[in-house]
C-alpha cells in the first residue's frame, strides 16, 4: 500500500457463476485511491462499476487478486470485520436515498452514530453539524415523505457523513434528481471533500457528476480503459 493511500487493488478479478459457466465482471484491475480523492468510476451499464464499488465498500470480496481497504486486506475480511469497517469508516450514498420513513431527518442521520454507541450529547452535536453541512437544520423534525428528492438526498449525504468516515461511496447519487438539485448535491459533496478530506468514490455515467470529478476511471467490460486526473 502506497503512503497516503486508503485503498489498494492489485490484479483484481471478480467473476460470478452463470448457468454452467462463469461471468467475469472485473478482470485484472489494479488501482490505488489516495486520501481526499474526489474520483469516479465511469462506464456504461454492465461495465463493472457497482461490482467494484461493492468490493471497495467491503460488501463483496474478490475472486482473485488482493484488495486492501483502509488497512484491511481482503483475505482477512470476515463478515464481522467487514461490517465493523463499514460501520466505522465507510459511508454510503444510494441513488434512491433509502431513508427510513418512520424516523425524522434527525433520527435518520443519528442512526449510524447509534450503531457506534456515540454518547447522546456528542451524537446530537454531530447530527446538527452534519445537517448544517447539507443545509437542512430547519428540517430536523420532518419525516422523509415530507421531503423533496433533493432534500432526501441531502439527508442521505448527512447520514453518510455524520460519523466523518474515511471513505464515501456513492452509486449514481444524482440519478433521481433534476439538474439544479444534482448540482446542489454535488457542490455539497465537493465542499465536504475539501473541508473534511473525506475520500469520495462515485459510480456514475451522469455527465453532471463527471464534471465535478478530479479523477475519472473509465471501465469497459470489467477492465480499466483509462485513469485520468483532472486539474481544477
Amino acid at each position, binding site marked *: 500500500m502506497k503512503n497516503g493511500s486508503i485503498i489498494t487493488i492489485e490484479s483484481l478479478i471478480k467473476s460470478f457463476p452463470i448457468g454452467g459457466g462463469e461471468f467475469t465482471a472485473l478482470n485484472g484491475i489494479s488501482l490505488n485511491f489516495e486520501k481526499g480523492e474526489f474520483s469516479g468510476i465511469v462506464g456504461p451499464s454492465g461495465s463493472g462499476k457497482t461490482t467494484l464499488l461493492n468490493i471497495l465498500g467491503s460488501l463483496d470480496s474478490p475472486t482473485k487478486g488482493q484488495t486492501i481497504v483502509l488497512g484491511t486486506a481482503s483475505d482477512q475480511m470476515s463478515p464481522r470485520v467487514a461490517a465493523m469497517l463499514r460501520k466505522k469508516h465507510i459511508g454510503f450514498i444510494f441513488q434512491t436515498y433509502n431513508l427510513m420513513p418512520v424516523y425524522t431527518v434527525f*433520527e435518520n442521520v443519528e442512526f449510524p452514530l*447509534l450503531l457506534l454507541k456515540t454518547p447522546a450529547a456528542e451524537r446530537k452535536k454531530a447530527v446538527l453539524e452534519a445537517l448544517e453541512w447539507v443545509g437542512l437544520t430547519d428540517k430536523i423534525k420532518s419525516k422523509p415523505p415530507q421531503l423533496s428528492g433533493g432534500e432526501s438526498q441531502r439527508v442521505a449525504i448527512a447520514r453518510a457523513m455524520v460519523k466523518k468516515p474515511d471513505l464515501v461511496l456513492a452509486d449514481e447519487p444524482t440519478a433521481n434528481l433534476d439538474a439544479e438539485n444534482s448540482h446542489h448535491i454535488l457542490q455539497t459533496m465537493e465542499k465536504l471533500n475539501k473541508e473534511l478530506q473525506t475520500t469520495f468514490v462515485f459510480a456514475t455515467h451522469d455527465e453532471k457528476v463527471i464534471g465535478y470529478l478530479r479523477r475519472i476511471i473509465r471501465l469497459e467490460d470489467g477492465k480499466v480503459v483509462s485513469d485520468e486526473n483532472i486539474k481544477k
Partner: protein
Amino acid sequence: MLRFYIKGLFRDRSRSLMPILVVAIGVTLVVLMQCWVTGVLGDMIVFNAKFATGHVKVMSKAYNDNIDQQPNDLALLGTEQILQNLSADYPGMEWVERINFGGLVDAPDENGETRAQGPGGGMAVDLLSPGSKEAERLNLEKSLVRGRMVQTPEEILLSDEFATKLEIEPGDPVTLITTTMYGAMSITNFIVCGTVKFGATALDRGGMVADINSVRMALDMQDATGEILGYLPEWEYDELQADAVAGSFNEKYSNEDEFSPVMLTLREQGTMTMYLDMVDYFKSIIIGIFMVAMAIVLWNSGLLGGLRRYGEMGLRIAIGEEKRHIYRSLIIESIFIGFAGSIVGTAFGLFFASLLTKGIDIGGMMQGSNMMMQGVMKARITPDAYYIGFIPGIFATALGTALAGIGIFKRKTAQLFKELQA
C-alpha cells in the same frame, strides 16, 4: 438503541398495532378458553367431589369392586372406629358418612292405596347432627324449590322433577320400599318436607336426600356405611395431598380381606381420572393450538413486514449493522409486541370470562344424560388466567419473528447496492 427501535415500532402501525391486535385476539381466546375449561371441568370435579367421590373415599374392598351396583350388602363395618382413626390420623380433614340407596318410592292416596310409584336413587347424609356441613356442601338450602329442609328423622327431600312426576307435594307421605344390607325387605314411611333441584340431570331425574340415621335404620346398617368421604382442608382438591393420605391409610389399614377398608383418591374413582386428565389435556391443547396458529400467523406477518422493510434491513446491513444484531432487534421488537398484545388480550379475556362466570344453562341439552355434571356451565377465573396468555402470546410472537427473520442471514451483502437502487 432500544429506544430508537421502540420509537420506530410505535410510529409504524403496521409493525405494532396490527401484530398487537393479532396477539391480543389470540390471547383473549386462550384466557377465555382457559377460564371456561377450568370452570366447566373444575365444576364437574367439585360437584363430583361434593356429591359422590369426596377428595378421598373409604369403602370396603368388595364394595369398591362392585360400586356400580351400590352394594350396601358389602358396606363398611365398624365405621365408628374407622372414623375415630381417620380423625386421629388426619386432623384437619373432614370425614363424612354416606349411604347410597335405591328403591321404589310409593305415593299413597288418602286411603293409603298406591296413587303413583317410581324408582328412585337416594343419598343418605348427615343432615341433623349439630355442626354437620353436609347440607351446605350439597348446597341443599339453595337448591330448595318447594317446602323446607329436613328437620326430623322422618322427613325426606325429593328432587323436584321426581316429585312433579309422581305429583307429590311437600307434606305428602311417601313409602320407600327397598332391601336392608342383609337382603331383607324394608318398607319405611317418610314425609316429603321439600323438593330440590340439584342442577345435575342425573340427580334430578329420581333423586332423594334423607338423614343418614333414618336410612341406616331403614337399611339395618348399624355401625356400617357405604362410604366415608374425606375432604381436605379448605375443600380444595390437592392431588399430592390426597395421594399421601390414601397411601398412608391403605398401608396402615388395608389388607387382603375383601371387607377391609380401602381409600381411593378422587382421581382413582370412576371416570374422574378422565376428567382430571381432560382438564390438563384441554389446557395443553388450547395453548398448543394457539401457539402453532399464532406462530404461523406471525411468521407470515413477519415475512410480509420483512418484505416491506427489505430496504431498511438492507440499508442497516450496508451501514455496518451486523446481521445478528438486526435479528436480535427484531426479536426484541417481537417480545415487546407479544407482551403488549398479551396485556390487552388478557384484559379482554378476563372481561369476557367474567361475563361467563354467571354461566350458560345447558340443562335442556342434558335430558337423559347420566353424567354427574351441573346443568349450568360456568367459567371460572383462577390466578392462572392472569398469566397463562403471556406464555403463548410472547413465545409465539418471538417464534414467528425468529422464523421470518432467518431471511436476514441469507441476505447477500454483495447484492445490496443493486437491491437498494430498486
